[in-house]
């Protein structure tokens, strides 16, 4: 089980790399924003898998809840900014 979870962790890191490619390469700013959202979802999952791997889920789960809430604030602010920028 430990080995399997480690493989899952590495695979998730590689997937984050795929999203990072989109963030770095994206033709428009919205592609970057989208990649950022994908990265944060992966990071939430990665944290929980990490918690299972260390068998200390009670510590890691709180950070992932915090991530999920903060991600909303950051992304909404970003989307709102981009919306207003084009209007003015």
């Amino acid at each position: 089980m430990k080995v399997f979870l480690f493989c899952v962790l590495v695979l998730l890191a590689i997937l984050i790399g795929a999203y990072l490619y989109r963030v770095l390469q994206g033709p428009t700013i919205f592609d970057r924003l989208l990649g950022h959202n994908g990265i944060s979802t992966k990071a939430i999952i990665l944290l929980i898998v990490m918690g299972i791997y260390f068998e200390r889920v009670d510590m890691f789960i709180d950070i992932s809840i915090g991530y999920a809430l903060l991600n909303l604030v950051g992304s909404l602010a970003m989307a709102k900014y981009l919306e207003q920028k084009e209007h003015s």
Partner: protein
Amino acid sequence: MIFSFEIPLLLLLLVTAAGAILVKDLMSAVLLLGSYSFFLSLVWAWLGAVDVAFVEAVVGAGLGTVLFLLTLFGTAPKDTRLRRPPPSLATLIVFPLLGVLLLYAADDLPEFGNPKSPASVHISPTYIEQSYQDTRTPNVVTAVLMDYRSLDTMGETVVIFTAGIACALLLRRNS
């Protein structure tokens, strides 16, 4: 086995940091810095410092991004494109030298996780043995941060709280 997972995380960090410097647009740089904080807090979480990871996520990914954005809101630049002149000759010489020097110095540091390094034999055993009896906190890093050094941490928390209040006030005015 435990340490090899740091390599992909550190690679991601490096790529993000380089991207944040090299990208052509101010908005994208802000976004990349947000991702950078995410990865950095993943590294902290992997090292077991859960509180540091949480603060990094709150300050770096949440507040930092929103504060950068509010600055962009407030200044309202017509053009957020970054223009950067090519680096001068002195930069090209000094910084690689500095990097080589730092790498050379890092070679003399004790190995990561070495039980005989000065940091591990001096005070860490006391913390590891006594922190649970002293504070009833299950995580040693949390015990050090939140109990032994709680005044220091309280100052940091006040800073974060102030930043949060400033954020809320500015956002309210905008909406």
